[in-house]
C-alpha cells in the first residue's frame, strides 16, 4: 500500500507550529517512514504535486492571494487540518481586526503603497472547510503526534476541549488565582499545553484559545475584583487567540 501523502503549508505565521513537527526528534524518522512528505518547504526542496492525503496548514489569511491559495490547497487535499492559533483563530496578527489597518501600515512602512494586505487576519476555517483544528500558540508536540497517529489510523484525535483548570487538578498544581490572587485565563482556556504557566506560578494567558462553552463574563467579573482595569480586561482576551469568537466578543465588551 502506498504511504499517505503529507503536505505542510504556511500562511501568515511565525513558523513555530511547523517547527514543532521538526522538534519531534525521537519520532521524526518514524513519521517520515509512515508518510510520504510530498510538500514541506521548510524542510525539503523536493516538491511533489497533489492531490495530498493530509494537508497540515499553519498560519492565517491576511492577503487576497492567500485567500485564493487556500482554496487551491483545499481542492487538492483529502483531509485539511489546521495547526496553531494563527490558522485556527487568526493569530496575534488578528489584532488588526480591532484597528485601522491603514494606520498600522503607515506606522510600520515608509511606503504604504508597496504593501498589499487585507484589513483582517482570519482563520483558515473562515475560508474553506476544515476537517480538524489543532489549537495552541504553539501547538503541543504530544497533541500533534496524537493527531498524526489518529489520522493515519482513521480515527478522531483524542484532544479534549476541557479547561486548563482540569490540567492543574490532574497535575496537582495549586490554583494561582484562588491561592495567590493571580489573574488566570485557565477557567476559560482549552487544556493541552501541558499545564505550563500555573506550574511556574503564572496565570494562564490563553495560548490554546477558548474551551468549549466558556463562561468568560463570570471570569471577567472575578478578574475585575482582583483589580484588573477595563483596558486590561480587554487586552487579556486580545492576544494570540483574539480572533476566536468567544474571546473576541468578551474583549469587545470591555472596549
Amino acid at each position, binding site marked *: 500500500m502506498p504511504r499517505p501523502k503529507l503536505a505542510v503549508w504556511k500562511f501568515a505565521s511565525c513558523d513555530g507550529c511547523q517547527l514543532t513537527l521538526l522538534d519531534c526528534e525521537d519520532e521524526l524518522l518514524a513519521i517520515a517512514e509512515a508518510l510520504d512528505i510530498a510538500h514541506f518547504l521548510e524542510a525539503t526542496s523536493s516538491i511533489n504535486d497533489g492531490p495530498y492525503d493530509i494537508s497540515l496548514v499553519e498560519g492565517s489569511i491576511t492577503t487576497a492571494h492567500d485567500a485564493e491559495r487556500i482554496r487551491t490547497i483545499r481542492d487538492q487535499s483529502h483531509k485539511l487540518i489546521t495547526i496553531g492559533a494563527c490558522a485556527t483563530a487568526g493569530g496575534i496578527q488578528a489584532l488588526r481586526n480591532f484597528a485601522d489597518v491603514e494606520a*498600522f501600515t503607515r506606522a510600520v512602512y515608509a511606503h504604504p503603497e508597496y504593501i498589499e494586505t487585507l484589513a483582517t487576519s482570519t482563520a483558515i476555517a473562515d475560508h474553506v472547510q476544515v476537517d480538524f483544528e489543532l489549537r495552541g500558540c504553539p501547538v503541543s508536540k504530544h497533541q500533534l503526534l496524537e493527531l498524526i497517529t489518529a489520522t493515519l489510523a482513521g480515527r478522531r484525535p483524542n484532544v479534549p476541549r476541557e479547561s486548563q483548570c482540569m490540567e492543574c487538578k490532574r497535575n496537582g498544581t495549586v490554583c494561582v488565582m484562588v491561592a495567590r490572587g493571580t489573574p488566570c485565563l485557565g477557567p476559560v482556556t482549552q487544556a493541552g499545553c501541558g499545564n505550563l504557566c500555573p506550574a511556574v506560578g503564572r496565570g494562564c494567558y490563553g495560548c490554546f484559545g477558548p474551551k468549549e462553552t466558556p463562561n468568560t463574563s463570570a471570569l471577567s467579573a472575578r478578574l475585575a475584583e482582583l483589580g484588573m482595569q477595563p483596558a486590561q480586561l480587554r487586552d487579556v482576551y486580545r492576544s494570540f487567540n483574539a480572533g476566536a469568537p468567544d474571546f473576541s466578543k468578551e474583549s469587545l465588551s470591555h472596549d
Partner: protein
Amino acid sequence: MTERIIQVDALARVEGEGALYVRLRGREVEKVEFRIFEPPRFFEAFLRGRDALETPDITSRICGICPIAYIMSACQGIEMALGVDVSPEIDALRRLIYCGEWIQSHTLHAVMLHAPDFLGLDDAIQIAQSHPDLVRTGLRLKKIGNSVMECIGGRAVHPVNTRVGGFYRAPDRAAVRALVPELEWGAKAARDLTLAFAEFDYPDDEFDYTFVSLIHPDVYPILEGRIGSNRGLDIAVPDFNDNFVEEHVARSTALQGRMRDGSAYLVGPLARYANNFDRLSPDCQATAREAGLGPVVRNPFKSILVRLIEVQYACEEAARLARAYEPPDPAFVAASPRAGEGHGCTEAPRGICYHTYRLDAEGRIEHAQIVPPTSQNQPQIEADLARVVADNLDLADKDLKWRCEQTIRNYDPCISCSTHFLKLQVDRV
C-alpha cells in the same frame, strides 16, 4: 545577446517564505532581487497601547525558531525603560536558555536544512538513508537545545517562564544540573560534525565583509556588550539608529538594513566569530584550526562550519553555566510603571536583534521598533548573489539556481522574523 532568467518562486529549507529573481544579459548580471513578501504582521503597530510587561510574550511570536532572541531583546529594552537592573544570577540563567536556542536553531539549520546542499540531496530524510548516523547525531544535538529551553522556559517554542525582570520561577538546581552530561556529549558531537563537514566541497568564494555584531572584552557575546565591527565601529546599543538605517523597498515586506553611508553589512555567526574569535574557548579555537579555519572566515559557504563551532561553544558554555547554577532569589525583579525609553540588543542565532521602546507614564508602549537580523542581511545577501552569479555564469541554469539558493541559505535566513517571503528567478535575457 541572450537573456537568461533564473527564478525560484518559493525557496525551500528556509524559515518563512521568500523568492529570488536574477536577470542576465549575456554575461552581465542586470538585476538581482532577494524578495521577502511574507504577509506583513504589524507587530510594531499593534504593540502601541499594550502594557510593556506583555512585550516579551508578544514579540516572541515574531519567530518560532528564535523566540528567545525576541524575548531577551524585548526584556532588555523594557527593563532599561523602567529602570530595572537584574541580578548576575538572572543574567546567567538568561545566557543559559539562550545557549539552548543557539544549539537547536544552529543544529536545525546546519544538519537538516543546509547540509543537504553540500551532499546534493533534497532534505535530511534523504540524508537519513545515506548517512543515518549523521542525522541521528543531529537530532540528538537539536534535542539537547530544546531540553535546555524546556527545562528553563517550560517549552521550546514560545517559552512561558521568561518575563521582564527575570523568570516567573527559578528552575530547580537538580533539573538544571541534570542537563550537564548531554551538553558535554553535545560539545564533542558538534566538534566531530564540524570536522566531518569540513570535508565538504566548498565553492571558492570570498568577500571582504563589514562584520557587525555585539563585541565584549571578556566573553563571546550573546546578551552583553556593545555593537562593533571589523572596521572600527564601536557604539553603545542605544546609538543603533545613529549608525544604521532601515529602508523600505518595493519588493519586500521586510525593511532592509544598511549602514548610514548606504553600504551593506553582515550580521550572524561569521560576524560574531570574526569580531570575537579570541573569546571562544581554547577547545573551540582548536576545532576551528583543525577544520582549516583562521580567526576570520570570509567564505560565506563556510558559515555552516562556524555555526557548528558556535554549537560546540554553546554546549560548553551551557554546561559551565548549568554546573555553576544557583537559583536566582528572587527569581525576578518587580518593575513599576513609568515613562521612559529603552534599548535592547542580543545575538539571535542569525545575528543582532535590536529593539527600542518608548513607554508612557502608565507603562504602556507609545513606540516600538524591532530590527531583526534577516532584514539587516538582505542587502548583503543580494550583493553575494550578484557576485556568485557573475562568478558562475558557465553553470547550467539548474546548477546556477542551486548555487543561488545555497548562497541564500548561507545566511540561515529566517524570513518569518523579517515579519515577511522569498522567490528565486534567474532571467537570462
